[in-house]
């Protein structure tokens, strides 16, 4: 692994040890950073300002033109007062917690398993990356070919074994579980990679000493490996949570947010408000709520982490 964790990259860039006071922009420094800033300005800052403006307005599309009427906080009260909005946030929390927990447990188990394998080790290291590089759209499609009630492989198998067929994605009881399974299948390989790399970094002599002292495998995992992996587990949980909140493609293809809104997560909700119901102002308000919530949660997480670690 030739790479450096981003936190360290940031730290290195923010305070290089040598020549601290030379903080003047040479023309080349300007030239190097300006295109990046320009991109950020045009594609993040300006769109965000438009989202704020849209959130405070009633926006109609008349003959292809946007018509803006300032309405103040109307959209925001509508969004915050609506039961559907909160249900969507609840769904998102359920999805994120379930998929993060399951993928971390499985990824950890998989890392320990691969670490002990000999014959299948090279194959595993190669094949396990496959699910993670395939497009979420294609992953969803692959699982649709398995989970679809009519043509899916799973129900076909159930039929052959004379088991009762299931609606899988069409049943509010199983739909959320099904999309969690798909997400876990897709991302556990990445989680595995993080844990496997961290596992390889544990000092072998510590483990050897524990073995000589008579510790069995379970005790070694419990008292040496897990504590050593704690920072990685925290980092992976954070990354996977962010990924979970961002998820869109899977729900769009597998369930369209259904049945009865049971798998409508935040991105799907914004999309249908904006493009299907054309309630542009509400969609923008909801976007703002999500952005602020993300910022606050991350702020709290980073604050707690810095407190715990120092």
């Amino acid at each position, binding site marked *: 692994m030739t790479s450096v964790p*981003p936190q360290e990259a940031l730290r290195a860039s923010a305070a290089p040890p040598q020549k601290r006071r030379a903080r003047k922009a040479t023309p080349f420094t300007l030239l190097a950073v300006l295109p*990046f800033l320009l991109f950020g300005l045009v*594609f993040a800052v300006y769109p965000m300002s438009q989202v704020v403006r849209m959130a405070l307005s009633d926006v109609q599309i008349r003959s292809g033109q946007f018509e803006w009427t300032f309405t103040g906080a109307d959209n925001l009260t509508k969004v915050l007062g609506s039961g559907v909005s909160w249900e969507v946030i609840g769904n998102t929390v359920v999805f994120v917690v379930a998929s993060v927990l399951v993928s971390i447990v499985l990824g950890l188990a998989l890392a320990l398993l691969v670490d002990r394998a000999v014959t*299948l080790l090279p194959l595993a290291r190669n094949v396990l990356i496959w699910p993670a590089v395939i*497009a979420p*759209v294609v992953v969803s499609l692959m699982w649709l070919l398995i989970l679809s009630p009519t043509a899916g492989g799973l129900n076909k198998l159930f039929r052959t074994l004379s088991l009762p067929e299931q609606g899988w994605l069409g049943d509010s009881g199983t739909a959320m579980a099904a999309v969690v399974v798909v997400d876990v299948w897709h991302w556990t390989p990445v989680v595995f990679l993080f844990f496997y790399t961290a596992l390889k970094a544990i000092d072998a002599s510590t483990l050897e000493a524990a073995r000589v002292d008579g510790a069995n495998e379970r005790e070694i995992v419990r008292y040496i490996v897990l504590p050593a992996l704690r920072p990685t587990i925290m980092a992976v949980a954070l990354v996977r949570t962010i990924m979970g909140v961002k998820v869109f493609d899977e729900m769009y293809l597998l369930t369209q947010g259904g049945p009865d809104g049971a798998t409508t997560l935040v991105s799907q909700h914004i999309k249908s408000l904006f493009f299907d119901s054309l309630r542009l102002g509400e969609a923008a308000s909801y976007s703002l709520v999500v952005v602020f919530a993300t910022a606050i949660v991350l702020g709290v997480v980073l604050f707690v982490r810095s407190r715990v670690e120092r």
Partner: protein
Amino acid sequence: MSSLTETPRRRLWVEITLGLVLLVAVIPIIWTLVLAFLPNRAIVDSGWQFTFWLGNFATLFDGGAFLAQIRNSVVIVIGAVAICLAIGSMTGYALSRLNPPRWLTLPALIITGFIPLIPPMTLVPGLYILLGQLSLLGTLTGLVLVNAFINLPFAALLMSSYFSTVPNELREAALVDGASESRTFLSVMLPIVKPGLAATGIFTGIMAWNEFLMGLTLTTGGNTAPVTVGIAGLLQPYAITWGELAAAGTVAAIPIIAMAIVANRHIVAGLTSGAVKG
């Protein structure tokens, strides 16, 4: 970890469990591959029929839209990767080695840090307005720029970490020898971080090829859309042609898996150092 305490029997258990896990990892991929070569009749049949049939691919490529969508995706990938490598390596170099003033780095760091954290969907309403004002809605140029923007923070961060591994003495030696800053960057530093450029390029390429949301919301579909949106379009509520769908999935997944096999190490480097992506 060494295996002093491991018995042969336990080792066999490890291999068997891992074998089952690998099976679970590849079954959806193999199933898709199998269905891609089956006629629709055999797929919806309640029994198990397996015949080899190329008709799915024939109908898929017949209409023309799918071919156009693959071409769109290729253009988006090449464009986004080129922009990310050019701008990402310059910004990464500046952040890592040039010691720029705070007023320049702070906004760059805020953008690098925050954009990958929020759901891209929250930016879509604003991007829709922006691209509308620039008359780039539904155009390839628009999608190239948006895809480049989404991957830029990660590209800059990854390149910055690669530049940080290069000893500063090299840069200083070049400057002492009279090379200009831009010359040092282009002829000394950039060639050294070639593996970093490869990792960044492969990674942003995969991300751009796999991108769906922006393609869906910022184009009108059909010939203007990337291949991921084309695949979603095959899912019509009433008459799903499953075989065609499987064939489309195969075409979209195979190049990526092939690349993963060739460039496994680069991809792993990209994935594991991209703790802020997502």
